[in-house]
């Protein structure tokens, strides 16, 4: 499977998972405290941007991020919040990667970030850093009220942990098929 086709398929798959499955289950922890703990949705679609090849130029990352964000916005009626968060995340991806990887980015040709190529710990660190960026941007724009900073942090943390669980699940599910193709 060529790298373009694989990424397009991944795009469709992630949108489908996010929109048709994850959006339908509004999670909340400690159901007995339903009054105090807000419901939230885990976000798995940023994984599409995380898993683009390392040598992807920044302008393409930005365009891909905007497209993905607008698609999710249309499904979730959020105006442009997802697009804004995604574009920020896409812009800062190279910075996160250069900070995490030992060699310079241009030296990794045709390599995609994955559990197989990076190992569990670096990949999860990378994913957590990127998702933290995305979630922070998303919830700051969404809530837009710094009086309730505790609520903001609570929501970011809860969503981040749950999203990470789904990222690990995705990695476990699809890593074998990726290994076969390579």
């Amino acid at each position, binding site marked *: 499977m060529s790298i373009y086709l694989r990424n397009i398929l991944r795009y469709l798959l992630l949108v489908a998972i996010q*929109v*048709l499955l994850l*959006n*339908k289950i*509004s999670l909340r922890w400690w159901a007995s405290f*339903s*009054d*105090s703990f*807000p*419901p*939230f*949705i885990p976000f798995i679609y940023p994984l599409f941007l995380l898993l683009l090849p390392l040598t992807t130029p*920044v*302008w393409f990352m*930005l*365009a891909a*991020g*905007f497209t993905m*964000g*607008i698609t999710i*916005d*249309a*499904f*979730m*009626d*959020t*105006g*442009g*919040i997802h*697009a*804004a968060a995604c*574009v*920020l995340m896409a*812009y800062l991806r190279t910075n996160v990667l250069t900070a995490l990887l030992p060699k310079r980015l241009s030296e990794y040709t045709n390599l995609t970030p994955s559990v197989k190529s990076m190992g569990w710990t670096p990949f999860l660190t990378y994913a957590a850093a990127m998702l933290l960026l995305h979630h922070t941007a998303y*919830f700051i*724009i*969404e*809530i*837009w009220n710094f009086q*309730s900073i505790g*609520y903001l942090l609570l*929501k970011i943390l809860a969503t981040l942990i749950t999203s990470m669980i789904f990222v690990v699940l995705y990695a476990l599910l699809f890593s074998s098929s990726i290994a076969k193709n390579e």
Partner: protein
Amino acid sequence: MRKLIQLIRRFWNLILFIILEVVSFVLIAKRQSIQGVDIVNSSNAIVGFFYRKQNDVVYYFQLKQMNDSLLNENTRLRNLLAQNSNVDTFRDSIVRIAIPLRDSVKSAVSDTSRKGIGPIKAVRYASYRYIPARVINNSIANDRMNYITLNRGTDDGISKNMAVVAGNGIVGRVANVSAHYATVVSVLSEGRSYSACLSDGTEGFITWEKGSPDYVTLTKIPLQQKVKRGDSVFTTGYSIFPENIMVGNVARIDTIKTNNTKNLRVRLSTNFRKLQYVYVVENKLGEEKRKLESRNIQIKE
């Protein structure tokens, strides 16, 4: 000029980043304004199609619950009928029905002048029309605005700003419509307040604060008003909803000393987690009312 092009090429990524962020923020700003029409929203045909297909699959799993809720609603409506209290949705008006005059000689006077003849009769007609719709997408986890997508659009007679109610409570207001789909701003949205009253007619406003999809706050209740937990809250006819629709029950009472009012935390009777079908309410006299009220505002200015 060459320097400018060089500069653009050097900072091309940053420029693109800023452009895309500005576009996003313009979209967000459009969404926040009350009159604003979203450019990307789930009432468009593609998104609506996906949601409808998904709902077609999930629909069967929910049939049991749906049966129960429909049965409950039927019972409630039958009780209402039995009490003969359906007057609320009807409106009386006094008209004179013209007696047709069968003169063999044609009158030179036009027919309109004869309109006032005849006995006075009360004609009763319903001022609200209910359009059933299925919920194909529903969000409760957002912090500012929560939207619901319905499988009905302008083809079914739905237009902007119509009220939406469920079998056992209030749901929201239609925000965007396309030919076959509509999006609804649910009651779980900040900045929207609706008029509501206690069962003795004391009025207040219900607003939603982020955090819980089960509760709204009823504000501006006078301090001397006696309220107990469990008291019911109903809509009034002043905002978009029809009168006497259940909003919920009082769960907590807070006294605000600074302006001598009570804030009541109301547990919604609508279960937004399991919303399956709703009714879009067309108020046939709503347009007339709005026009008259807007004229008042003009006079004041």
